[in-house]
Protein backbone atom coordinates (compact mmCIF):
# COMPACT_ATOMS: atom_id res chain seq x y z
CA UNK A 1 0.00 0.00 0.00
CA UNK A 2 1.86 2.98 -1.22
CA UNK A 3 -0.10 6.12 -0.81
CA UNK A 4 0.63 9.81 -1.06
CA UNK A 5 0.65 11.87 2.06
CA UNK A 6 -2.64 13.31 2.96
CA UNK A 7 -3.69 16.77 3.91
CA UNK A 8 -4.30 15.93 7.50
CA UNK A 9 -0.74 14.98 7.80
CA UNK A 10 0.63 17.84 5.79
CA UNK A 11 -1.04 20.39 7.98
CA UNK A 12 0.14 18.54 10.99
CA UNK A 13 3.73 19.17 10.04
CA UNK A 14 2.93 22.85 9.67
CA UNK A 15 1.11 22.87 12.93
CA UNK A 16 1.59 26.18 14.68
CA UNK A 17 1.69 24.88 18.20
CA UNK A 18 4.79 22.87 17.55
CA UNK A 19 6.34 24.91 14.79
CA UNK A 20 8.51 26.79 17.20
CA UNK A 21 9.66 23.52 18.59
CA UNK A 22 10.83 21.91 15.41
CA UNK A 23 14.34 20.75 15.79
CA UNK A 24 15.82 20.15 12.44
CA UNK A 25 16.13 16.46 12.20
CA UNK A 26 19.67 15.90 11.14
CA UNK A 27 21.40 12.70 10.33
CA UNK A 28 24.83 12.14 11.66
CA UNK A 29 27.00 9.41 10.34
CA UNK A 30 29.71 9.34 12.92
CA UNK A 31 29.38 7.76 16.30
CA UNK A 32 31.08 10.75 17.87
CA UNK A 33 28.13 12.94 16.96
CA UNK A 34 26.89 12.87 20.53
CA UNK A 35 30.27 14.01 21.62
CA UNK A 36 30.37 16.83 19.11
CA UNK A 37 27.02 18.12 20.29
CA UNK A 38 28.09 18.15 23.89
CA UNK A 39 31.23 19.99 22.89
CA UNK A 40 29.17 22.51 20.95
CA UNK A 41 26.90 23.05 23.92
CA UNK A 42 29.88 23.48 26.21
CA UNK A 43 31.46 26.11 23.98
CA UNK A 44 28.10 27.83 23.59
CA UNK A 45 27.62 28.03 27.32
CA UNK A 46 31.16 29.18 27.84
CA UNK A 47 30.74 31.95 25.28
CA UNK A 48 27.26 33.16 26.16
CA UNK A 49 26.23 32.29 29.70
CA UNK A 50 28.56 34.96 31.13
CA UNK A 51 26.28 37.50 29.43
CA UNK A 52 23.12 36.24 31.09
CA UNK A 53 22.89 39.27 33.40
CA UNK A 54 23.28 41.65 30.47
CA UNK A 55 20.62 39.74 28.54
CA UNK A 56 18.25 39.75 31.47
CA UNK A 57 18.84 43.40 32.27
CA UNK A 58 18.10 44.50 28.71
CA UNK A 59 14.99 42.33 28.47
CA UNK A 60 13.79 43.51 31.86
CA UNK A 61 14.13 47.16 30.92
CA UNK A 62 12.52 46.65 27.52
CA UNK A 63 9.59 44.61 28.79
CA UNK A 64 9.24 46.21 32.24
CA UNK A 65 8.04 42.90 33.53
CA UNK A 66 10.05 40.16 35.20
CA UNK A 67 8.15 37.15 33.88
CA UNK A 68 8.22 38.38 30.29
CA UNK A 69 11.90 39.18 30.64
CA UNK A 70 12.73 35.66 31.81
CA UNK A 71 10.67 34.08 29.05
CA UNK A 72 12.32 36.22 26.42
CA UNK A 73 15.81 35.54 27.71
CA UNK A 74 15.21 31.81 27.71
CA UNK A 75 13.77 31.95 24.22
CA UNK A 76 16.69 34.10 23.08
CA UNK A 77 19.24 31.60 24.41
CA UNK A 78 17.55 28.77 22.56
CA UNK A 79 17.48 30.82 19.37
CA UNK A 80 21.10 31.72 19.86
CA UNK A 81 22.04 28.09 20.36
CA UNK A 82 20.24 27.11 17.18
CA UNK A 83 22.19 29.63 15.15
CA UNK A 84 25.42 29.32 17.11
CA UNK A 85 27.00 27.48 14.18
CA UNK A 86 26.65 30.64 12.12
CA UNK A 87 28.22 32.84 14.77
CA UNK A 88 31.91 33.37 14.11
CA UNK A 89 32.36 36.74 15.72
CA UNK A 90 34.17 37.47 18.93
CA UNK A 91 31.56 39.74 20.44
CA UNK A 92 29.24 37.22 22.03
CA UNK A 93 27.60 39.79 24.25
CA UNK A 94 26.57 42.08 21.38
CA UNK A 95 25.37 39.09 19.38
CA UNK A 96 23.29 37.77 22.25
CA UNK A 97 21.90 41.21 23.06
CA UNK A 98 20.78 41.58 19.44
CA UNK A 99 18.79 38.38 19.74
CA UNK A 100 17.39 39.41 23.12
CA UNK A 101 16.45 42.78 21.72
CA UNK A 102 14.69 41.30 18.70
CA UNK A 103 12.87 38.72 20.79
CA UNK A 104 11.78 41.45 23.20
CA UNK A 105 10.46 43.60 20.39
CA UNK A 106 8.48 40.70 19.00
CA UNK A 107 6.74 40.44 22.32
CA UNK A 108 6.38 44.20 22.74
CA UNK A 109 4.77 44.47 19.33
CA UNK A 110 2.27 41.85 20.32
CA UNK A 111 1.45 43.56 23.56
CA UNK A 112 1.16 47.05 22.24
CA UNK A 113 2.55 48.91 19.31
CA UNK A 114 2.12 52.29 20.93
CA UNK A 115 5.09 51.92 23.19
CA UNK A 116 7.66 51.34 20.50
CA UNK A 117 8.31 54.72 19.02
CA UNK A 118 9.06 58.04 20.52
CA UNK A 119 6.00 59.76 21.82
CA UNK A 120 5.85 63.02 23.54
CA UNK A 121 3.91 62.87 26.74
CA UNK A 122 2.42 66.27 27.44
CA UNK A 123 1.32 65.40 30.93
CA UNK A 124 4.77 64.48 32.04
CA UNK A 125 6.07 67.42 30.15
CA UNK A 126 3.72 69.65 32.13
CA UNK A 127 5.02 73.06 33.10
CA UNK A 128 6.60 73.42 36.46
CA UNK A 129 9.73 71.38 36.10
CA UNK A 130 11.57 74.26 34.48
CA UNK A 131 12.02 75.58 37.97
CA UNK A 132 13.88 72.40 38.89
CA UNK A 133 17.54 73.23 38.48
CA UNK A 134 20.16 70.79 37.20
CA UNK A 135 21.66 70.88 40.66
CA UNK A 136 18.39 69.66 42.15
CA UNK A 137 18.19 66.89 39.58
CA UNK A 138 21.74 65.95 40.44
CA UNK A 139 20.86 65.83 44.12
CA UNK A 140 18.05 63.40 43.43
CA UNK A 141 19.70 61.47 40.66
CA UNK A 142 21.07 58.80 42.93
CA UNK A 143 17.55 57.82 43.83
CA UNK A 144 17.31 54.49 42.01
CA UNK A 145 13.54 54.26 42.34
CA UNK A 146 13.10 57.72 40.84
CA UNK A 147 15.33 56.81 37.93
CA UNK A 148 13.50 53.54 37.43
CA UNK A 149 10.16 55.31 37.24
CA UNK A 150 11.49 57.93 34.84
CA UNK A 151 13.18 55.28 32.68
CA UNK A 152 10.05 53.17 32.50
CA UNK A 153 8.16 56.13 31.11
CA UNK A 154 10.53 56.46 28.17
CA UNK A 155 9.76 54.79 24.86
CA UNK A 156 11.46 51.44 24.28
CA UNK A 157 14.02 52.79 21.82
CA UNK A 158 15.23 55.22 24.49
CA UNK A 159 15.27 52.66 27.30
CA UNK A 160 17.21 50.35 25.05
CA UNK A 161 19.88 52.85 24.05
CA UNK A 162 20.34 54.07 27.62
CA UNK A 163 20.79 50.54 28.93
CA UNK A 164 23.26 49.66 26.19
CA UNK A 165 25.34 52.79 26.74
CA UNK A 166 25.06 53.51 30.47
CA UNK A 167 24.90 50.01 31.83
CA UNK A 168 26.72 47.91 29.27
CA UNK A 169 29.15 50.64 28.20
CA UNK A 170 28.88 49.58 24.58
CA UNK A 171 30.40 51.62 21.78
CA UNK A 172 28.25 53.53 19.33
CA UNK A 173 29.13 50.99 16.69
CA UNK A 174 27.97 48.08 18.82
CA UNK A 175 24.79 49.95 19.74
CA UNK A 176 24.09 50.65 16.07
CA UNK A 177 24.41 46.93 15.31
CA UNK A 178 22.19 45.83 18.19
CA UNK A 179 19.51 48.48 17.76
CA UNK A 180 19.71 48.18 13.97
CA UNK A 181 20.09 51.86 13.32
CA UNK A 182 22.71 53.74 11.29
CA UNK A 183 25.84 54.52 13.35
CA UNK A 184 25.26 58.22 12.70
CA UNK A 185 21.91 58.03 14.46
CA UNK A 186 23.26 56.66 17.74
CA UNK A 187 24.59 59.94 19.09
CA UNK A 188 21.45 61.95 18.33
CA UNK A 189 19.14 59.26 19.69
CA UNK A 190 21.24 58.96 22.82
CA UNK A 191 21.15 62.73 23.26
CA UNK A 192 17.38 62.75 22.91
CA UNK A 193 17.01 59.83 25.31
CA UNK A 194 19.15 61.56 27.92
CA UNK A 195 17.34 64.82 27.44
CA UNK A 196 14.00 63.10 27.86
CA UNK A 197 15.18 61.21 30.90
CA UNK A 198 16.33 64.46 32.50
CA UNK A 199 12.96 66.03 31.71
CA UNK A 200 11.05 63.15 33.28
CA UNK A 201 13.30 63.20 36.31
CA UNK A 202 12.79 66.94 36.68
CA UNK A 203 9.03 66.52 36.34
CA UNK A 204 8.99 63.88 39.06
CA UNK A 205 11.17 65.88 41.36
CA UNK A 206 9.02 68.95 40.70
CA UNK A 207 5.84 67.01 41.58
CA UNK A 208 7.30 65.67 44.76
CA UNK A 209 8.09 69.11 45.97
Amino acid at each position, binding site marked *: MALPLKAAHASETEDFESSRNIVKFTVFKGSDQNHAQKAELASFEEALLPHLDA*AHNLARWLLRNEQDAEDVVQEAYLRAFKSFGGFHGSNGRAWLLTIVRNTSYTLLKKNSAADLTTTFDDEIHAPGHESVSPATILENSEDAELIREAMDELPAEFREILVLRHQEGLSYKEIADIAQIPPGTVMSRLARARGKLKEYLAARIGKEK
Partner: protein
Amino acid sequence: MNCEEATKLMDGYLDSELDPITSQKIEQHLRECPKCDQAYKIHGSLIRVIGNATPYYKAPAELREQIQSSLRDAVGAKDKGGIGQPGQLSVPRPQGERRPVLSHVPWNWLALAAAIMSGALITAVFLPRMRPPNADQFLATQLIASHVRSLMANHLMDVPSSDQHTVKPWLDAKLDFAAPVADLSSQGFPLIGGRLDYLNNHSVAALVYQKRKHFINLFIWPTTPEDSTAQTMVEREGYHLVHWSDGDFTYWAVSDVNPSDLQNFKQLFEQQTARH
Protein backbone atom coordinates in the same frame (compact mmCIF):
# COMPACT_ATOMS: atom_id res chain seq x y z
CA MET B 1 33.17 75.79 16.31
CA ASN B 2 30.12 77.65 17.50
CA CYS B 3 27.84 76.93 20.48
CA GLU B 4 25.17 75.25 18.38
CA GLU B 5 27.62 72.74 16.92
CA ALA B 6 29.18 72.13 20.30
CA THR B 7 25.78 71.42 21.84
CA LYS B 8 24.94 69.00 19.05
CA LEU B 9 28.14 67.06 19.59
CA MET B 10 28.00 67.12 23.38
CA ASP B 11 26.93 63.49 23.90
CA GLY B 12 29.43 62.13 21.42
CA TYR B 13 32.19 64.07 23.10
CA LEU B 14 31.24 62.95 26.61
CA ASP B 15 31.08 59.35 25.38
CA SER B 16 34.54 59.71 23.75
CA GLU B 17 33.04 58.67 20.44
CA LEU B 18 34.22 61.60 18.31
CA ASP B 19 37.24 61.67 16.09
CA PRO B 20 40.32 63.38 17.58
CA ILE B 21 40.09 66.43 15.36
CA THR B 22 36.47 67.17 16.28
CA SER B 23 37.27 66.52 19.94
CA GLN B 24 40.07 69.07 19.81
CA LYS B 25 37.77 71.63 18.24
CA ILE B 26 35.26 71.09 21.05
CA GLU B 27 37.92 71.38 23.70
CA GLN B 28 39.05 74.63 22.18
CA HIS B 29 35.47 75.92 22.14
CA LEU B 30 34.92 74.92 25.79
CA ARG B 31 38.01 76.84 26.81
CA GLU B 32 36.62 79.92 25.10
CA CYS B 33 32.94 79.56 26.05
CA PRO B 34 32.10 79.32 29.78
CA LYS B 35 28.43 78.76 29.02
CA CYS B 36 29.04 75.66 26.97
CA ASP B 37 31.73 74.52 29.38
CA GLN B 38 29.20 74.72 32.21
CA ALA B 39 26.56 72.87 30.19
CA TYR B 40 29.06 70.10 29.38
CA LYS B 41 30.04 69.71 33.01
CA ILE B 42 26.46 69.47 34.23
CA HIS B 43 25.38 67.14 31.47
CA GLY B 44 28.46 64.98 31.99
CA SER B 45 27.99 64.56 35.70
CA LEU B 46 24.28 63.93 35.30
CA ILE B 47 24.88 61.19 32.76
CA ARG B 48 27.47 59.60 34.99
CA VAL B 49 25.38 59.72 38.12
CA ILE B 50 22.18 58.58 36.43
CA GLY B 51 24.04 55.81 34.67
CA ASN B 52 25.51 54.57 37.91
CA ALA B 53 22.24 54.83 39.81
CA THR B 54 20.12 53.03 37.21
CA PRO B 55 19.07 49.69 38.71
CA TYR B 56 20.75 46.73 37.07
CA TYR B 57 18.49 43.72 36.89
CA LYS B 58 20.67 40.70 37.41
CA ALA B 59 19.33 37.38 36.24
CA PRO B 60 17.87 35.21 39.01
CA ALA B 61 19.74 31.98 39.63
CA GLU B 62 16.74 29.86 38.58
CA LEU B 63 16.80 31.45 35.14
CA ARG B 64 20.32 30.20 34.54
CA GLU B 65 19.27 26.71 35.57
CA GLN B 66 16.18 26.85 33.36
CA ILE B 67 18.21 27.93 30.38
CA GLN B 68 20.84 25.27 30.91
CA SER B 69 18.19 22.64 31.28
CA SER B 70 16.33 23.71 28.14
CA LEU B 71 19.62 23.75 26.23
CA ARG B 72 20.31 20.18 27.36
CA ASP B 73 16.84 19.23 26.20
CA ALA B 74 17.50 20.80 22.83
CA VAL B 75 20.70 18.79 22.48
CA GLY B 76 18.99 15.66 23.75
CA ALA B 77 16.32 16.08 21.13
CA LYS B 78 18.97 16.30 18.46
CA ASP B 79 20.64 13.20 19.82
CA LYS B 80 17.45 11.28 19.64
CA GLY B 81 17.06 12.27 16.01
CA GLY B 82 20.53 11.11 15.18
CA ILE B 83 20.63 7.76 16.86
CA GLY B 84 16.96 6.96 17.18
CA GLN B 85 15.42 3.69 16.20
CA PRO B 86 13.27 3.62 13.10
CA GLY B 87 10.17 3.32 15.21
CA GLN B 88 10.89 6.65 16.79
CA LEU B 89 11.10 8.44 13.54
CA SER B 90 7.39 8.95 13.31
CA VAL B 91 7.66 11.22 16.31
CA PRO B 92 11.04 12.85 15.93
CA ARG B 93 9.76 16.09 17.38
CA PRO B 94 10.51 16.28 21.06
CA GLN B 95 7.09 17.06 22.38
CA GLY B 96 7.16 19.18 25.46
CA GLU B 97 10.88 18.97 25.85
CA ARG B 98 11.44 22.50 24.79
CA ARG B 99 9.06 24.62 26.74
CA PRO B 100 7.27 27.08 24.47
CA VAL B 101 8.40 29.95 26.59
CA LEU B 102 6.13 32.57 25.16
CA SER B 103 3.03 30.46 25.42
CA HIS B 104 1.22 32.72 27.82
CA VAL B 105 1.24 35.39 25.14
CA PRO B 106 -1.54 35.21 22.56
CA TRP B 107 1.23 34.00 20.31
CA ASN B 108 0.44 35.12 16.86
CA TRP B 109 -2.83 33.84 15.63
CA LEU B 110 -1.71 34.87 12.20
CA ALA B 111 0.85 32.10 12.32
CA LEU B 112 -1.91 29.65 13.08
CA ALA B 113 -3.98 30.99 10.23
CA ALA B 114 -0.98 30.82 7.92
CA ALA B 115 -0.30 27.25 8.96
CA ILE B 116 -3.87 26.26 8.23
CA MET B 117 -3.77 28.06 4.91
CA SER B 118 -0.54 26.44 3.83
CA GLY B 119 -1.85 23.07 4.91
CA ALA B 120 -4.92 23.67 2.80
CA LEU B 121 -2.74 24.77 -0.09
CA ILE B 122 -0.70 21.60 0.06
CA THR B 123 -3.93 19.68 0.04
CA ALA B 124 -5.22 21.50 -2.99
CA VAL B 125 -2.03 21.51 -5.02
CA PHE B 126 -0.33 18.27 -4.27
CA LEU B 127 -2.81 15.90 -2.82
CA PRO B 128 -5.95 15.75 -4.83
CA ARG B 129 -6.59 12.17 -3.95
CA MET B 130 -7.74 11.54 -0.44
CA ARG B 131 -6.27 8.49 1.19
CA PRO B 132 -6.45 6.97 4.61
CA PRO B 133 -4.12 9.14 6.67
CA ASN B 134 -2.55 6.35 8.59
CA ALA B 135 -1.35 4.56 5.49
CA ASP B 136 0.03 7.79 4.07
CA GLN B 137 1.86 8.68 7.20
CA PHE B 138 3.11 5.19 7.48
CA LEU B 139 4.68 5.23 4.04
CA ALA B 140 6.31 8.61 4.53
CA THR B 141 7.62 7.49 7.88
CA GLN B 142 8.98 4.33 6.39
CA LEU B 143 10.65 6.20 3.54
CA ILE B 144 12.34 8.66 5.85
CA ALA B 145 13.25 5.91 8.26
CA SER B 146 14.81 3.93 5.48
CA HIS B 147 16.70 6.96 4.24
CA VAL B 148 17.98 7.70 7.72
CA ARG B 149 18.89 4.10 8.38
CA SER B 150 20.79 3.93 5.12
CA LEU B 151 23.00 6.80 6.24
CA MET B 152 23.81 5.12 9.52
CA ALA B 153 25.88 2.09 10.28
CA ASN B 154 27.47 2.03 6.83
CA HIS B 155 24.45 0.58 5.19
CA LEU B 156 24.09 3.13 2.45
CA MET B 157 24.93 0.70 -0.28
CA ASP B 158 24.93 -3.01 -0.88
CA VAL B 159 26.62 -2.47 -4.17
CA PRO B 160 28.87 0.57 -4.13
CA SER B 161 29.40 1.47 -7.73
CA SER B 162 29.12 4.54 -9.86
CA ASP B 163 28.58 2.34 -12.90
CA GLN B 164 24.94 1.86 -13.73
CA HIS B 165 25.91 -1.29 -15.62
CA THR B 166 27.13 -2.78 -12.37
CA VAL B 167 24.30 -1.59 -10.17
CA LYS B 168 21.46 -2.58 -12.46
CA PRO B 169 22.40 -6.25 -12.95
CA TRP B 170 23.06 -6.58 -9.26
CA LEU B 171 19.62 -5.29 -8.38
CA ASP B 172 17.94 -7.27 -11.15
CA ALA B 173 19.41 -10.44 -9.74
CA LYS B 174 18.06 -9.75 -6.27
CA LEU B 175 14.62 -8.44 -7.16
CA ASP B 176 11.70 -9.75 -9.09
CA PHE B 177 11.61 -6.67 -11.25
CA ALA B 178 14.12 -4.76 -13.34
CA ALA B 179 14.39 -1.29 -11.89
CA PRO B 180 15.54 1.47 -14.19
CA VAL B 181 18.92 2.90 -13.30
CA ALA B 182 20.23 6.16 -14.70
CA ASP B 183 23.64 7.71 -14.57
CA LEU B 184 23.29 11.39 -13.78
CA SER B 185 26.89 12.16 -12.86
CA SER B 186 27.34 14.61 -15.72
CA GLN B 187 24.31 16.54 -14.42
CA GLY B 188 25.68 16.83 -10.91
CA PHE B 189 24.01 13.81 -9.34
CA PRO B 190 26.59 11.00 -9.43
CA LEU B 191 25.26 7.52 -8.82
CA ILE B 192 27.19 6.01 -5.97
CA GLY B 193 25.47 2.70 -5.47
CA GLY B 194 22.42 0.60 -4.97
CA ARG B 195 20.75 -1.21 -2.14
CA LEU B 196 17.95 -3.60 -1.43
CA ASP B 197 15.32 -2.28 0.87
CA TYR B 198 12.03 -3.42 2.21
CA LEU B 199 8.99 -1.17 2.23
CA ASN B 200 5.27 -1.83 2.52
CA ASN B 201 5.81 -5.54 2.67
CA HIS B 202 7.79 -5.90 -0.49
CA SER B 203 11.34 -5.62 -1.61
CA VAL B 204 12.25 -2.41 -3.33
CA ALA B 205 15.29 -1.06 -5.11
CA ALA B 206 17.08 1.86 -3.58
CA LEU B 207 19.46 3.84 -5.73
CA VAL B 208 21.83 6.17 -3.97
CA TYR B 209 22.84 9.43 -5.58
CA GLN B 210 24.97 12.19 -4.29
CA LYS B 211 24.55 15.93 -4.56
CA ARG B 212 27.55 17.71 -3.13
CA LYS B 213 27.70 16.38 0.45
CA HIS B 214 24.09 15.20 0.48
CA PHE B 215 22.65 11.85 -0.40
CA ILE B 216 19.50 11.10 -2.28
CA ASN B 217 17.79 7.78 -1.84
CA LEU B 218 15.60 6.87 -4.77
CA PHE B 219 13.19 4.07 -3.91
CA ILE B 220 11.69 2.19 -6.84
CA TRP B 221 9.08 -0.52 -6.99
CA PRO B 222 6.55 -1.73 -9.53
CA THR B 223 3.39 0.31 -9.36
CA THR B 224 0.53 -1.47 -7.67
CA PRO B 225 -3.15 -0.46 -7.77
CA GLU B 226 -2.76 1.12 -4.36
CA ASP B 227 0.02 3.36 -5.52
CA SER B 228 -0.83 6.90 -6.34
CA THR B 229 0.20 8.13 -9.75
CA ALA B 230 -0.09 11.74 -8.71
CA GLN B 231 3.12 13.68 -8.36
CA THR B 232 3.83 14.73 -4.85
CA MET B 233 6.34 16.86 -3.10
CA VAL B 234 6.32 16.75 0.64
CA GLU B 235 8.50 18.22 3.30
CA ARG B 236 8.81 16.47 6.58
CA GLU B 237 11.20 16.92 9.45
CA GLY B 238 13.63 18.77 7.23
CA TYR B 239 13.55 16.10 4.52
CA HIS B 240 11.98 16.43 1.14
CA LEU B 241 10.13 13.61 -0.49
CA VAL B 242 9.32 13.66 -4.18
CA HIS B 243 7.03 11.09 -5.62
CA TRP B 244 6.28 10.30 -9.21
CA SER B 245 5.30 7.39 -11.33
CA ASP B 246 5.88 6.36 -14.94
CA GLY B 247 3.19 3.76 -15.23
CA ASP B 248 5.42 0.75 -14.64
CA PHE B 249 7.22 1.98 -11.58
CA THR B 250 6.58 4.11 -8.57
CA TYR B 251 9.41 6.40 -7.46
CA TRP B 252 10.07 8.12 -4.18
CA ALA B 253 13.14 10.29 -3.81
CA VAL B 254 14.10 11.22 -0.27
CA SER B 255 16.80 13.65 0.69
CA ASP B 256 17.79 16.68 2.68
CA VAL B 257 18.90 18.58 -0.42
CA ASN B 258 16.83 21.62 -1.21
CA PRO B 259 13.50 21.08 -2.98
CA SER B 260 14.60 22.58 -6.30
CA ASP B 261 17.59 20.23 -6.47
CA LEU B 262 15.34 17.33 -5.75
CA GLN B 263 12.86 18.41 -8.43
CA ASN B 264 15.72 18.81 -10.84
CA PHE B 265 16.95 15.35 -9.95
CA LYS B 266 13.51 13.93 -10.62
CA GLN B 267 13.29 15.57 -14.04
CA LEU B 268 16.75 14.39 -15.04
CA PHE B 269 16.00 10.87 -13.92
CA GLU B 270 12.74 10.86 -15.86
CA GLN B 271 14.44 12.12 -19.01
CA GLN B 272 17.17 9.52 -18.78
CA THR B 273 14.94 6.57 -18.12
CA ALA B 274 12.43 7.61 -20.78
CA ARG B 275 15.09 6.97 -23.42
CA HIS B 276 15.66 3.41 -22.32
